[in-house]
């Protein structure tokens, strides 16, 4: 693919790849902006949610997904964990000169498919091709808007002692899949990314636990990062139970060999939710009833002890601190 600034090659590309892929959204011919009917949006809730994220991943394609799936799911999930119903995304793509049209087509097809699965439209977009070396193959930025349900107030600072911490399924799959896909680690396991849009799952969760305090998608930094942010923001202690963490044996084995802590591995289809204790059974049942929550589990509780600290009861019955890492997991044992 040759780069250029809005010339005919680019127009052809947009016509050929994007409009055909996203035609379901029904926004042709392309304007410089997407337009929304406010009264239609207001039927969904009373506040607008707005988020953006850049996606760079190596490799572009990995077991369980590719950069296109990630770019849609990531933004959809960022909207959904705020209690919003995702409505539409924009998509800006930076392409390195020389990327094959087939590759682009495959990525765009994934985006279209993920958008369909999430029930959102990709309403506007932009594409640039840059010289070789100016980017690495393909970068995507998606921005999304959604509408927050009236009366729902979820936030990282809302957890209270006695609340219950849940996740919707197996942890660490995405991070392990990416590391494994990056080159031959001589391991005969194929771990798949869990990349998925979670807005449907979150709908059922909110219906089952209307008093829900907070949700976060446990992406970069894994659930360790989320629980630490939550402990700090809510000024509470978090107590996790290692034995109840849902994890594939393959992922545990992978982490053991690589010396990685699965709590810090990225997920792309997992949320961590905090609900009041009396809503926990219903929340768990609702998650488990959803296809993306079959392995959901209660993994810990919010306590009044050691505000700001996350402690995990280990499988051996001891306790250890789970903290946020500043450095690059450099050895701490002297």
């Amino acid at each position: 693919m040759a780069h250029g600034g809005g010339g005919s090659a680019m127009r052809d590309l947009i016509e050929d790849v994007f409009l055909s892929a996203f035609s379901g959204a029904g926004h042709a011919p392309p304007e410089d902006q997407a337009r929304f009917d406010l009264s239609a949006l207001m039927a969904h809730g009373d506040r607008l949610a707005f988020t953006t994220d850049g996606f760079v991943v190596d490799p572009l394609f990995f077991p369980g997904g590719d950069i296109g799936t990630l770019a849609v799911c990531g933004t959809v999930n960022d909207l959904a964990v705020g209690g919003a119903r995702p409505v539409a995304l924009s998509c800006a793509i930076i392409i390195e000169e020389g990327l094959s049209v087939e590759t682009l087509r495959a990525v765009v097809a994934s985006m279209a498919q993920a958008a369909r699965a999430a029930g959102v439209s990709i309403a506007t977009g932009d594409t640039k091709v840059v010289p070789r070396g100016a980017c690495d193959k393909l970068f995507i930025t998606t921005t999304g808007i959604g509408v927050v349900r009236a009366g729902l107030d979820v936030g990282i600072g809302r957890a209270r002692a006695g609340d219950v911490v849940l996740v919707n399924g197996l942890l660490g799959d995405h991070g392990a899949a990416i590391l494994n896909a990056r080159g031959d680690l001589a391991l005969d396991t194929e771990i798949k990314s869990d990349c998925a849009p979670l807005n449907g799952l979150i709908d059922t969760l909110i219906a089952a636990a209307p008093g829900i305090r907070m949700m976060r998608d446990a992406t970069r930094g894994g659930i360790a990062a989320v629980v630490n942010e939550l402990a700090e923001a809510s000024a509470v202690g978090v107590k996790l139970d290692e034995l109840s963490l849902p994890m594939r044996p393959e992922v545990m084995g992978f982490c053991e060999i690589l010396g990685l802590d699965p709590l810090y591995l990225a997920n792309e289809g997992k949320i961590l939710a905090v609900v009041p204790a009396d809503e926990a059974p219903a929340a768990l049942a609702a998650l488990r009833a959803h296809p993306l929550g079959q392995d959901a589990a209660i993994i810990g509780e919010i306590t009044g002890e050691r505000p700001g600290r996350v402690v995990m009861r280990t499988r051996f019955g001891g306790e250890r601190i789970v903290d946020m890492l500043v450095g690059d997991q450099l050895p701490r044992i002297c």
Partner: protein
Amino acid sequence: MPNGKGGAEQIEVCGIVQGVGFRPFVYRLAARLGLDGDVRNAGDRVIIHASGPRAVLDAFAAALLAEAPVLARVEAITRRPAAVPEPGFRIIESGAGTVSVGVVPDVATCPACRAEIADPAARRHRYAFTNCTDCGPRFSIVTGLPYDRPATTMAGFAMCPACRAEYEDPADRRFHAQPIACPDCGPRLWVEGAGAPAEANPIGHAAALLRAGRILAVKGLGGFHIACDATCETAVAELRARKHRPTKPLAVMADLATAHGLCTISADEDAALLHPSAPILLLPLKQGAPLASGIAPGQHHLGLMLPYTPLHHLLLAETGRPLVMTSGNRSGEPQIFRDDAARDGLAGIVDAFLMHDRPIARRLDDSVARTAAGAPRVMRRGRGLAPVPLPLPQDFAGAPPVLAMGGELKNALCLTHGSKALLSHHLGDLDEPATGDAYEIALADYTALFTHRPQVVAVDLHPDYRATRLGEAVALARGLVVERVQHHHAHVAGAMAENGWRRANGPVVGIALDGLGLGEDGTVWGAEVLVCDYRTSRRAARLSPIPLAGGDAASREPWRVLLAHLDRALGPAAVAGDPHLASLFAGKPVATLRAMVGRGLNAPSASSAGRLFDAVAALLRLAPDRLSHEGEAAMALEAVAVTEAGTPPYPFALRPEAGLTEIDPAPLWQALMQDLHAGRNRGAMAAAFHTGLADVFATVAAHTATAEGLATVAVSGGVFQNALLLEETARRLRRHGLTVLVPAQVPANDGGLAFGQAVVTAARHMG
């Protein structure tokens, strides 16, 4: 004043002279010599006003030094003429506003108290909480200052008239003994669990349980112990199983006569055992010593301590056996010191509890020491040693007060004030939540007890040490400067300061042989020759780095570092083609580790002596696939090596690289493989490794000293807890004509790190 005539003097005594029975000692001494005058506490000193014949005053001053109470440390006596006092000699009470400093450590039961509990006629016969001004609990019961009874955990015990009379009589050895107690008014013992309580004789009950092979929690001075009969194979095996502690050696408590039957003990070691701090001392085990084989599997040394409270004396005497006395905790967690936590945490481990009702104010683990290179060396600074201040070299007098946070594991913190440093007791590993709590309590505790207001906070370079984080938070909250000190610079600076090296003396050559510490270049260090003064440090040499595939996992699984060393020294093909190695690595994910190294995936580069020990131990099949405790592999290697000392050292190669001398272990690995194929004895190989490492570092340090025009070498780092390595290194350095500075009171491991951080920081903030 003419010689021989009478006169009056004011005599000031500085040092550790408060809370140690110094004023009653002065009183008795003055009475004995017939002097008039008085004595009082003033700040950190005692001021005596005395009159009498000049010769008697001289004798008095000499005796102040020579006969001072065991707990006192007299640093200076100054005398000046004064007005003649009233006749008689008095102790003047500390007035309001007098700052009382100097909390002293807990002290092992003195001979007088021991005699008393053994005397059927004495009112403290068999009383487990007997103490006097020369002995007993101190730091473990202190809750505030000034140090007197209401500010201790004895506050809830009202003295009976008999104790009160002793407490108030300046001639009594319990004059102002704050923890004074007797069976009528003091703490009580009882047994919980294991059948009906035997209220009348809890010690007899506990001893009977121990003799029957049961496992007991014993509430002691600074925490709970788990005890069992050390001669009982099944009891020891059961204790290990319940505590999930497969191999880590267990400490044993025995009386001195029994101890001599278990270990070979030199006169110096006898003195170290009998020291008022009563540490656990690592001692050579005698062949066929009557102990259960599970006490210290594979070790040639035993961690042994003498009884240090009346409770221990009575329990040992009634049991008639040496006792395992291991810290009361669940595996890997800090020692428990609160009753409820013990009932909760030890319930699955012990059959019964021997409890008492004197609260423990703070957890104080037993101190651990060993003799090496001619002196006792502290490995863990705890009960009996903390909080004795350590003197800094004289030219630190003007330093700003520093708070040093220490490292991640074996943490202790350190405060400096002028030319004194207060290195805290062992707090533990900061990945433990309970240690984290203890750390924050200790921080509040030490700064309050010693009215310390730090101006600078010293931390390690490692951003993810919890101590670093906490230090940054403390600095932020108080608006203080943070000073970052490289790990091995701190280790070496600690050795310098403890040995009185002055700032004005300039740089030394440092040898840091350690586990892992973050270096200035972002890679991990742990085997360096440094040229450093207190403020700055520069690497002159390093062991060749290897990739640590798996990061911290490589410190737990020695075969990972063995693979890295062999791949580097011999190449992957040689490793694959060797049948011995093939069997060593059978079933291990060798290809994955190599791929991680190739991709730089969690494989940080490290130059570590500790990991070299692990690798050699793994090659000699002296290390399990996964270590169950830190230092396990190195201890096993030292244990076999000592039997074969004197063999020629293994070679290392030296070459310049990137401005450093690179100490390349490739020839070591070639020699090891040759010897392995030749079927050479493991003990000889382990010994040749120790001497080889000592040789090459001593040689490089000597070259560095010559090049830099220096004559002093300071050595430190956790690997130097290895006595054989320390002795071989120090001997070679001295043979090169160099002066060697070795830590003794300050642990060479990370337990001493804060002390080094503190002196570096103090020096950097002194113009």
